[in-house]
């Protein structure tokens, strides 16, 4: 990166370390922290959306919709996460390529042949000719979907419980005012349920943060991948030979995750306080007794 790093083997001490820590591979390592943060930033709202849909479906008066909501939460919550993370991306990928092969191949045959999964070149997703970032983006998207489906199911259960926890009297009062079911939902039920949902959702958020290394399992080059690669002993074949340094790299990741969860806990604590204000819960009562802030 810097001019003085042109000949790493001639360097020593601090300047060696400076060059080492700014090598192209390290920059990729630093960028992978961004990958993890991006995954969190995209997955959290998406999972919440899935959860909200699932919870609303579970409460629906339309039977098939209710069944769908119930089956979704029960099924996803009943399968080990790792199985799901391995299953969803492969199933999605093969499903997409199968549909594309029907539409785009000249004489489509079943892609499942023996132990192979083959579609014609035009139906590949992404195309073999696509640049590498498209392939990476595609893999990342599949991972986001897998994460969202799994965490959405848990969120659905949390939100479903939270909706049921809103005191019936509140809803009855709203009905007595002549609000329609939809208005009751929007004006009373949903604004009030968050305070009940937050403990469960904050739990989920913490689990989601800690589940991000599963990206590594999906073949995405995340921080665990790079830490393992960079930390391994390097021979003279590399520009920066060094002994086994995995300990330090994993320590850095450990600190990163502790920092993430520490910040999250503080933010969630503030949010809980805010949402509790004026609520008929113990938290709300404690706030009321403490007097106006």
């Amino acid at each position, binding site marked *: 990166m810097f001019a003085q790093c042109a000949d790493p083997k001639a360097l020593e001490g601090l300047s060696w370390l400076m060059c080492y820590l700014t090598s192209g591979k390290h*920059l990729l390592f630093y960028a992978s922290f961004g990958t993890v943060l991006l995954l969190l930033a995209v997955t959290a709202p998406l999972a919440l959306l899935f959860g909200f849909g699932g919870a609303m479906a579970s409460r629906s008066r339309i039977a098939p919709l209710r069944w769908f909501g119930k089956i979704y939460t029960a099924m996803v919550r009943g399968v080990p996460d790792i199985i799901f993370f391995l299953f969803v991306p492969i199933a999605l990928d093969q499903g997409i390529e199968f549909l594309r092969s029907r539409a785009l191949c000249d004489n489509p045959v079943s892609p499942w042949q023996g132990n*192979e999964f*083959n579609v014609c070149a*035009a139906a590949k997703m992404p195309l*073999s000719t696509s640049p590498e970032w498209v392939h990476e983006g595609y893999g990342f998207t599949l991972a986001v979907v897998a994460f969202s489906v799994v965490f959405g199911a848990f969120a659905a259960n949390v939100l479903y419980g939270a909706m049921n926890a809103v005191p019936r009297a509140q809803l009855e009062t709203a009905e007595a005012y002549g609000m329609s079911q939809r208005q009751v939902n929007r004006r009373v039920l949903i604004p009030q349920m968050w305070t009940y949902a937050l403990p469960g959702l904050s739990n989920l958020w913490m689990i989601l943060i800690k589940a991000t290394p599963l990206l590594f399992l999906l073949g995405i080059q995340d921080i665990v991948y790079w830490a393992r690669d960079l930390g*391994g002993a390097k021979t*003279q074949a590399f520009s920066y030979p060094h002994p*086994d340094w995995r300990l330090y790299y994993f320590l850095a990741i450990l600190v990163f995750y502790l920092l993430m969860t520490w910040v999250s806990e503080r933010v969630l604590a503030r949010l809980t306080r805010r949402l509790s204000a004026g609520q008929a819960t113990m938290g709300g009562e404690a706030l009321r007794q403490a007097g106006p802030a």
Partner: protein
Amino acid sequence: MKKLILAAAALALTAGMGMAQTIRMGTEGAYPPYNFINDAGEVDGFERELGDELCKRAKLDCTWVTNDWDSIIPNLVSGNYDTIMAGMSITPEREQVIAFSQNYTPPADSAYAALSADADIEAGVIAAQTGTIQAAHVAETGATLLEFATGDETIAAVKNGEADAVFADKDFLAPSVAESNGELVWAGEAVALGGGIGIGMRQSDTDLKKTFDTAIQSMKDDGSLNEMIVKWFGEDAKVFE
């Protein structure tokens, strides 16, 4: 503006189709000097140089992809990439699942490295990478097999005393042994395993297999393959006759 970008993108895509066939070359990227990620973050090593030369001779447009060793065969057959060049020896078991090109290295020695030359390789704990011919070999001897996902971890296991010895391709272990200042030494006799390293491909890709067979043959004939082997593995490396 948006339409312009879309049109340009569509043009770029269709233009790409007319060009040489794009082959996605799968490798592990963690088995120096065969293949590794260099400090610039790119795939490097003997197989990178060889693969690029083969693609040039076969007039193919090649890009490199890395994949964990564990899932390197499943992801080939499910179409994530088109070839495996990852120090994979040709064995009858693997040939049932995938096809191999002719070998691009002669059958090479596998060796034991340990902290002392008299380490117990007969009945001790031997580290090997999962799913390699070396792991299969250790399983057949009386030793206890300790498997790791990467080759690097197998060496680390010996250094920190978890295993008595590591069993791997001699050419992979050689730099680590040479640079360990005497900490690591060879133990026991080297064993010749497998039928040399070949390019793994899907069994249905018969044309691609022919293309690579021809390219490898041309490099064997003009001696450039032997030169490359010596360049990466040293003067003592086995070359083609």
